[in-house]
């Protein structure tokens, strides 16, 4: 039987356990967010954390949870999210044509 290391009761801040947290368009209609964790332990912690479930991420971005995809890539300790963009890139009303600053709502996530 394997036991998990006891968690810090306060949890871990995502920005402290990942060395890359980035967002970018995957085409003008989708936003993709890549998180690369510092090590296998941090990846495992994040992969099982409710704070990084599709539902939790959908809530942070104000989109329907059914439209959020999550890909786990354990080999490189990465989690990818794909979300619909609220405004098609570059249409009037868009605030981030490249989608390059949309990772920020995740920085303060507590795992």
């Amino acid at each position: 039987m394997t036991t998990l290391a006891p968690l810090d009761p306060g949890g871990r801040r995502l920005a402290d356990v990942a060395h890359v947290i980035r967002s970018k368009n995957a085409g003008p209609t989708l936003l993709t967010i890549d998180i690369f964790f510092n090590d296998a332990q941090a990846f495992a912690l994040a992969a099982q954390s409710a704070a990084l479930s599709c539902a939790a991420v959908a809530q942070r971005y104000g989109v329907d949870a059914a439209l959020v995809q999550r890909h786990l890539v354990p080999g490189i300790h990465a989690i990818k999210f794909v979300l619909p963009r609220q405004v098609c890139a570059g249409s009037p009303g868009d605030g981030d044509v490249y989608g390059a600053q949309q990772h920020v709502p995740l920085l303060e996530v507590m795992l």
Partner: protein
Amino acid sequence: MNAVDRLLRSHRPQDGPLRVLAASGQLGYGIPEPALRRGLARAPDFIGCDMGSIDPGPYYLGSGTMAAPPEMVYRDLDLVLCAALDAGVPLVIGSAGTAGARPHLDAVVAVLRQIARRRGRSFRLVTVASDIAPEQVVSALAAGTLEPIGAIDLPSEEQVRACSHIVGQCGTDTLAQALALGADVVLAGRACDTAIFAALPVMLGYPMGLALHMAKIIECTSLCCRPGGRDAMLAELTMDGFTLESMNPDSHATPASVAAHALYEQADPLRVEEPEGTLLLDAACYEALDAHRTRVHGARFVARDRPSLKIEGACLVGQRVVLLAGVADPGFLDCLPQALAVVEQRVRALVTGAWKLFTHIYGQGAVRPLAEGTLRAGEAGLVLEFIAPQVELARTAAGVFKQNLLHYGYPGRKSTAGNLAFAFTPSEIDAHAAYRFVLYHVMQDVAIGDLFALNAIQVDGQQVH
């Protein structure tokens, strides 16, 4: 003999690796020359450059203009064209002039001709036009074979016809058709970034899966390395894999950095959809050869029965004028959104017509939603977009809005002399036309064979003009 024919006749995959030099992932923004020179010293079999993307937004496709500065486009094209001609190897450029529609293709051909004249160089150029006739899209719409990619609606027939340009991302098969015409330089309009680097290897008999996977990684040059960068990237392809090596000695292709690149700007890290089929990366392996180079193998390609085509189309929304101003008064910061709404109503009573306002309050959630309580930073920046059918109307709305906001008397106001700080005047600025994407869709079951117009041109720099 032209460079493509020479390569196709002389190179046999069993004789040794095919050396592919990716010179630029964004031609026109300044190719780093030291790394390019190192790459050229490695005697590449061909040179590829990506020149465009949909990322910069709908303006460039809609307006038919290039995003990169013309001077730098000339400089970069001059570098790679002379390098390829000197070495006698093919030069393949995709997504001409940012968005790859007819005006972009023509603009890049014009620069190539200009370089040829100034340098006295002659070469055989084959161009691929990626423009798709609106009728073709309307037919697909009627046949139910037009599918949205992500969060975008199916367009109406009128919206399709309103697009100023529609392009299709031509794939490896189309570029192979162009290369088969015999060329020193192949310049494609909108193209899959993979096709630029995969077409020649596939024509030479290398496996489609490996060729596409290699292409997918090197099209961004050294971005797949750690630290990532824009330096030229060399791939050495054999029948069972490829080796990746940055031409910047301080930028290292490691198994982790290369594998991580599969996630970049991709919706699915394990599948890449191409016109001809699907590239599957689930069995891809990345092994370090040393601290600087990584060997990759294992990607598979599954062809689809009928090709599909990603299409892009943009239409004019109106003429844009922006008003720039700063706000620092805490009382005004507290009521900015409400103040903008009230002033908009006042301006609408004064300036009639179909103008639209899009507000961006920097410091108060213009970039991403902010939680209540974090909104009131020390100051805010206003970028107010006015979009109207005529630029004069947009200017009028912006000018009247500026003065009304400057002197708006909000409740509790102490600064009765003015609400806005201007860094300069005029603070309302003509900001080009506004466009939007109407099309970012897949057309299924497309007869791709004759969709893209190919044109062979002898560019003669010796001619007297």
